[in-house]
């Protein structure tokens, strides 16, 4: 049983150490040293098993965090992974990639450092893989119904696994050459090595999920044809249309969208040959956008031996502590130092891009100015313009929505004001067409994607069978806990 005084005995938060910077930037492997299971157990004992576990509320998946913290503390690894898997298909992804709103909501966090939930999560699943606890769960009964899942990111994979286990025959379509979507080509290996995806796919394949790569739905097969071929279709194509930058010089050579850059880098790390790879080697790199994608670019550029990397953000430097308008248990926007920031580069705030400058069509620099707030809008302050040297500018300004041309034109689906595909409370867009993940929600976190995938699977199962036993963790309209909702 949980030790109710655990949080008084172990007062410090202790997380796994990152490998030394000089060492780790020489390879693409994950930045963390091997975790110490003793520390993990001890850290798990800090969980207070709250009457209202806000962490569990803060997690879109509804991970039963107090339960598996306790099981981890007790060393009951098998039960821990069963419990974890009961709400999360892919803890090895979330344990590495999720920004952990659960930890922001941790009750201990009111006046102490929060429990190391994310790290406990990843240790549970890694240990489970090592111990051979992760085995295929093959359905006893096959329904005879077929489902096409379009897109193989976290939402699509989660839905596919749930539906396969419910006895449906599921085919996952991916236009790229490998399964995984953003997980595969958007996330650098130093954050998550791709073997984790492969191990999971191995399990899914054994369970009966079918994977079709290199098929671009809407082009290779029309949406309508797909719909006619399957009893249900799930659109899980993400929201990958990048936000464009509307300044002079964006078409200069040397200006790239972050995702193009990362994809190429990831392919190379995976062993592929990429012609004319955009590399940062020896270059002065400027990354526009202070978010996670920008940070991924930073780590990648560092490893490609860039001469310098500067990340510039248009807004203010986030607070280091919670401000009053982001009270506990909200997930606050805080100034964070990720592993890439530790390694290399500068971060600048309140920098507005005025234009990209170049010579002969080739980028040489970027003109920036201080950001000024006019009528709530952020604009460059006149007279503060200056030029920063740049050989490579990476645009990491976020995403505006799904790539929806083919689906809207072929199926007459509608988009909402944020250009996401409209769906009802049961994730259904129309007829047998369902939408899950960023394609419906807009750009979001991996946990939301998995949660939506799971929920959409339940909706599809119910649609096909009339009832379902599958969990329905989130509604399409659910939002993170906030003062404002």
């Amino acid at each position, binding site marked *: 049983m949980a030790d109710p005084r655990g949080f008084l005995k172990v007062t410090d938060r202790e997380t796994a150490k990152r490998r030394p910077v000089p060492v780790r930037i020489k390879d693409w492997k994950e930045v963390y040293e091997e975790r110490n299971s003793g520390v993990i157990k001890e850290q798990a004992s800090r969980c207070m098993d709250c009457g209202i576990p806000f962490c569990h509320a803060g997690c879109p998946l509804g991970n039963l965090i107090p339960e598996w913290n306790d099981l981890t503390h007790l060393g009951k690894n098998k039960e821990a992974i*069963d419990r974890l898997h009961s709400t999360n298909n892919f803890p090895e992804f979330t344990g590495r990639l999720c920004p952990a709103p659960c930890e922001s909501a941790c009750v201990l966090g009111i006046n102490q450092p929060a429990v190391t939930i994310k790290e406990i999560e990843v240790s549970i699943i890694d240990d489970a893989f090592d111990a051979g606890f992760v085995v295929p769960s093959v359905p006893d009964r096959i329904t005879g119904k077929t489902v096409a899942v379009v897109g193989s990111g976290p939402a699509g994979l989660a839905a596919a696994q749930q539906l396969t286990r419910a006895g449906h025959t599921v085919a996952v379509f991916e236009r790229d050459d490998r399964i995984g979507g953003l997980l595969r080509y958007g996330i650098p290996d130093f954050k998550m090595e791709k073997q984790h995806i492969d191990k999971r796919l191995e399990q899914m394949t054994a369970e009966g999920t079918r994977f079709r790569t290199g098929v671009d739905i809407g082009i290779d097969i029309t949406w309508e044809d797909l719909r006619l071929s399957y009893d249900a279709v799930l659109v899980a194509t993400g929201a990958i249309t990048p936000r464009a930058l509307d300044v002079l010089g964006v078409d200069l050579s040397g200006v790239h969208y972050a995702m193009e850059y990362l994809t190429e880098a990831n392919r190379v790390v995976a062993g592929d040959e990429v012609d004319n790879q955009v590399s940062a080697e020896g270059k002065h790199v400027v990354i526009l956008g202070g978010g996670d994608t920008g940070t991924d670019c930073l780590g990648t550029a560092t490893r490609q031996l860039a001469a310098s990397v500067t990340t510039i953000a248009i807004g203010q430097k986030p607070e280091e502590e919670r401000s009053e308008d982001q009270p506990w248990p909200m997930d606050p926007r805080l100034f964070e130092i990720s592993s890439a920031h530790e390694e290399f580069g500068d971060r600048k705030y309140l920098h507005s891009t005025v234009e990209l400058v170049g010579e002969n069509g080739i980028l040489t620099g970027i003109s920036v100015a201080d950001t000024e707030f006019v009528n709530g809008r952020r604009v460059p302050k006149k007279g503060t313009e200056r030029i920063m040297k740049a050989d490579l500018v990476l645009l990491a300004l976020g995403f505006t929505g799904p790539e929806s041309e083919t689906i809207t034109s072929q199926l007459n689906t509608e988009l909402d004001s944020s250009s996401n595909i409209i769906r009802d409370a049961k994730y259904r867009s129309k007829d047998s067409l369902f939408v899950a993940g960023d394609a419906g929600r807009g750009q979001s976190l991996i946990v939301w994607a998995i949660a939506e995938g799971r929920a959409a699977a339940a909706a599809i199962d119910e649609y096909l069978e009339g009832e379902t036993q599958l969990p329905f963790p989130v509604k399409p309209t659910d939002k993170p806990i906030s003062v404002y909702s």
Partner: protein
Amino acid sequence: MVNSGPFYKFGTAPQNQGLYDSANEHDACGLAMVATLRGYAGHDIVQMALSSLRNLEHRGAVGSDAGTGDGAGILTQMPDSFFRSVLSFELPVAGAYGAGLVFLDTETASEDKAKFEKICAEESLTVLGWRVPPTDSSVLGELARKAMPLIEQVFVSSNDLISGMDLERRLFRARNRSERDIGLYLCSLSSKTIVYKGMVTTLQLEPFYPDLSDERFESLLALVHSRFSTNTFPSWPLAHPFRYIAHNGEINTVRGNANWMAARESQLSSELLGDIDQLKPIVSKGASDSATFDEVLELLVLSGRSLPHAMMMMIPGAWEKQLDIDPQLRDFYEYHSMIMEPWDGPAAVVFTDGDLVGATLDRNGLRPGRFVVTEDGFIILASEIGVADIAPDKIVRKGRLQPGKMFLIDTLAGQIVEDEQVKSEVASLEPWGEWLESGRIKLRDLPEREHVRYSSKSVKRRQRAFGYTEEDLKIFVAPMALAGQEPIGAMGTDTPIAAISERPKLLFDYFTQQFAQVTNPPLDSIREEVVTSMTTSIGPVRNLLEARPEHAQQMVLDYPIIGNDELAKIKHIDRANDIGKAVTVSCLYRVDDGPEALEERLAEMCAEADEALLAGATFIILSDRGCNRELAPVPSLLSCSAVHHHLIRNGTRMMTGLVIESGDARDVHHVSTLIGFGASAINPYLALESAEDLVAIGTITGITAERSSKNMIKALGKGVLKVMSKMGISTVSSYGGAQCFEAIGLSQELVDKYFTGTTTKLGGVALPILHDEIAQRHTAAYPIETANKDSTPLDVGGEMKWRRDGPPHLFNPETVFKLQHSTSQKNYEIFKSYTNAVNDQAERLMTIRGLFSLNKDLREPVPISEVESVDSIVKRFATGAMSMGSISPEAHETLAIAMNRIGGRSNTGEGGESVERLLDRERRSAVKQVASGRFGVTSMYLTHADDLQIKMAQGAKPGEGGQLPPNKVYPWIAEIRHSTPGVGLISPPPHHDIYSIEDLKQLIFDLKRANRAARVHVKLVSQFGVGTVAAGVAKAKADVVLISGHDGGTGASPLNSLKHAGTPWELGLAETQQTLLLNGLRDRVVVQVDGSMKTGRDVIIAALLGAEEFGFATAPLVVEGCILMRVCHLDTCPVGVATQNPELRQRFHGQADHVVNFFEFLAQEVREYLAELGFRTLQDAIGQVEVLDVNRAIRHWKADGLDLAPIFAAKDIVTTQTQYCSTSQDHELEKHFDYPLIDRAKPALKDGMSMEISSQINNTMQAIGTMLGNELTKKWGEQGLEPGTLKLNLTGSAGQSLGAFMPRGLQIDVEGDCNDYVGKGLSGGIISVKPPTTAGFPASENVIAGNVIGYGATSGKIFLNGVVGERFMVRNSGAIAVAEGVGDHALEYMTGGRVVILGKTGINLGAGMSGGIAYVHRLSESKVNREALQLGEITLSALDKAGADELRGILEQHLDFTDSLLAKILLDDFPSHVKDFVKVMPRDYARIVEIQQDAQATGIDLDGQEVWTQILEVTNG
């Protein structure tokens, strides 16, 4: 249902309506018995009885109609010569005719009389004539006059002129039949005794019946009785005495006793009584508990048992755990326990058959009974001493009734028969022991069975089928399996009750436990375990009216819960002997065939039980083992109760033991309901297998699987004992089948059929929904489709701790967060989004009030600017009672500061208040609570209160006490509780000065005199019947009645209480409003409500239902930072709210301003509602039920069957009174003994001059000294004056509560004697009592004072020159007291002070004693609480030098104050006598005192960390 029958006639009670139900009426009373040993009858006996009765007036009550009493009466011998002289017709010789008063219906009198004569003729009796006794109805109150029957007297003789018992039996038949057939009511019909009674006050009885004043009206004995009913609808027939008894107290188990009587009826046969079928039902409908008791007693006596024998059967002493009891008597009791269960409850019963007259007390000794014997052979026994005016020199003996003991007088022989003699005579009537030896089967004697172990996989599958969750395993099963302890939780419950829960609930969840409050006390099953018993005998029960060896052929179980191997023994019993035969009936049904299949299966099960009985089964086992994909289990409670009631209806229930092999029972509440609905024994096999599995899979470690299963049984058993104790029941055999539950959300039809006799006020679901719930669970266990679920964990649960997939909680991440944020940021918009979230949840079927809607069209809205201001509304708000101890000083003070700022009221909670805060207008708590532990309740504390709140029960755990463990008694807590740091403190389940309604009246009386300006509250917990209790409380003159919902409650509580006891406040409040209105009492009390109130909507709904003040606890705590950790009991609150841990207290970040914001927001919301609904003030809205619209209530698959109309029934009550408090109670303060003395004592009170006042007193003068004490404290503060500054020299018998709460400086010296509660809450004063110098008896052997002396005393001295009653110096924390002999349970819960006992002690001394020292002369170890001795908690030792010196000093004072002869003898040769004394001292206390002494010697801070660390080392062992 229309109430009819003799007990419904001639009453003033309305028909049942709304939530009011006449079945809830309670009464309590004063009684007296007078007899003479002189051998001849006289009118003096009658006069003495009537005058005693008049002196008991204060124990009775009057209702809203001041002239109408609750009832009084007298029973005497047949006044033969009187009748001969007044009758116009001839009577046969005395003893050859019977007579009695008949209550006739005016309209049908003549035909009823004719019918009666016909029945007499059938019974070979002749009606000799009728007489109309003179009555004077002008003395009656109006209500009584309206209900008054036509009263006549009938005289009957037998055709063959028989007499004695033969005639009595025939008269009984005639009376009984005419009551059942014609509906007549005869007060009595006997050749030996006669009863005069009616709906009169004690003063009216004699003038109403002039016969009683006639000098020729003579008797050797008389019983008199004065009734205090909780309501204002007393009835003529329900006045006492009945035919054999008068009773003070309450039979808690009467429903079970009556059920079992009904079950026995088919077997009853008696040659003496003739055809019994004509006399059924034995138990009349509508009879009170006392009347029912009387009916059964009469049956036992007339069928051949002597009166003492029958009394011993019905109210056995606590024999089960008494080691030194006479073996023959033990056999007698055990044998009879197989024939009849005890009639359990607080009871002092006086009884007579016309020759023998006696009295007995229940095993707990919860009612007082005092007697005197005079030199000329008069014996007067009464609830109080001093009721008869007898010269002291005439008295040769003063005594008291003792628990489980009988006091008997044989008026024919002219002698007193002592308890031992009576009992040994009865015990030697038959060879009970031999019969037991040859018949009794003991489980351990049956052949052992090999233990069967189930695999984890099997256990898990069945866990699913029975709806187990992970939480069940973690929170219920694991703690029980590990430690044998019932699990504890905190912070109440905020999930939907079963009736409106979306999720499938277990049938158990639809039942809530009843609990004792006010009208009878809950018991302390831990400290007073010695009087409890879990032993039960199961198997066929035979004819009650015979006693044969075969009656003992039963199986004796030590515990009603049995293990799997034990059940196996019973299943195979026929292999072991030829007495028993067990048949198993399967309780599974084809779930796919729907609800019809369930109903059919239940019918089949009943039929199979019948077949089994035909085949000679002595044990029927109802088993739900063996479920599979097709077969689902019927809820075991349904199977159990269905078969139980079926067999009762068939008259065959007594032929068999009903054993339940149950997969769904896993919690204390589950087992308790099963026993309550008729299970003889329960095998909760899956719970036991789950426990073993938890060991097998390593979730719990350190114990064996076998031990885990034993622990589980122990925990469940202990829990059942606690549930019984909450209801005030001490033996499981009388708890069994007593149905002490009410149903919420079950349809009347379902209940009538399967749970016959249970209350279900709101209707609800029937079998189809129960089937749906079963099917849902079943589908989860046996899914039709897909992946195997073996590795899928169970459902997570979420009943206690919030989970997303679990049941919804009103407090959840969103609401807690928004409440905190809105109040800290003072943002009303976010606050609205908080209340919307709560209200929305409420509408989504989380609460009953969520189902209501507000009718906004009924009245014209008013502009909000015209509505009463926020400032004015917040004055009606209070915070809940949370002690400083349960919450941190910071959290406590923050609430107080906030409430003082807005003019609301915060509450001290149990646990006192530091003088520093007491006197600080900013930080004080306006409401001072008086709870059962009486911690810190001093004259000072009471004097500085605005409101005084008597906590009768608390929402989270009604009927239970509490405990502050040693490690939480930090120095600052100990200081305000007047105790020692590190010494654990116990709050007992009952207030030991409140065992009944008249006792509550007494405490209200005392408190009102301790502070005349304060309002006195009585806090009750909502349950079915609370309205009636509230009416009684209003009659007891409380100023405020607080109805607390079941769901509130911070602090720790056993989970079964937290979830299953009490009802939502909506129900209790509505019932209270309705009952008060019906009684005409509403306008004299303020009604307050609390329990999980969270929003303005909650306030408005409460107001519309009748509340005028509102309490909040959890919500303001959340505002202070509480995040519902639910670990209040662990002292690990991470936000510093509910902890004393200094490190955690530093994390407290609550602010008074935020709390102020909360209440102002709340008031603002209330204003908005008022405006919308068209009210200008909150007062206008109070009781306006019609604004609540039930027709538009949300519909729901489960709620559809609910009928909420009874909640709104107040709108149909026609009354002229206001719906809110518009007048006040008449406390008659100026009539108090002290009142005129305040002026006389001015020199002392004002100027501190020494002075003495002398006076004569009698037993009607109560709480002498309390008001003077209040005056003294007002002027002189905590320290009072020098001892003895103001002395009262009193002569006579003092009324109850002599010297209550008396502060330092006051001294009372009584020459005479006194009643109960002497020195209650003594705060520094001195009390001495000695017999008159002329007394004709030795002081040290006679009773000088009553029960519960020095309860909660904090300082001062008490010297008593004589013997006293039970529970001497309970919860003393600092006073010095001397008595020369004490009853049972002395020194219970004592935490400090010194007690010297110079004479005999009763049993169970020192139970729960955690501090202080007692010096007891010749203490026998067997009298000390067994557990405390065994565990070494209490040490007995010889006196060391310091002890001897202290004792000598105290004895010298005792001698000084009382001239005690005994003290003189002891002091004369002290060195030799001191060796006979034993020092009683709690072990930990001794060590802590030592630590403190060392610290003092070395100059270390006593309250510092260093000392505290040492103390913790001691207390942690």
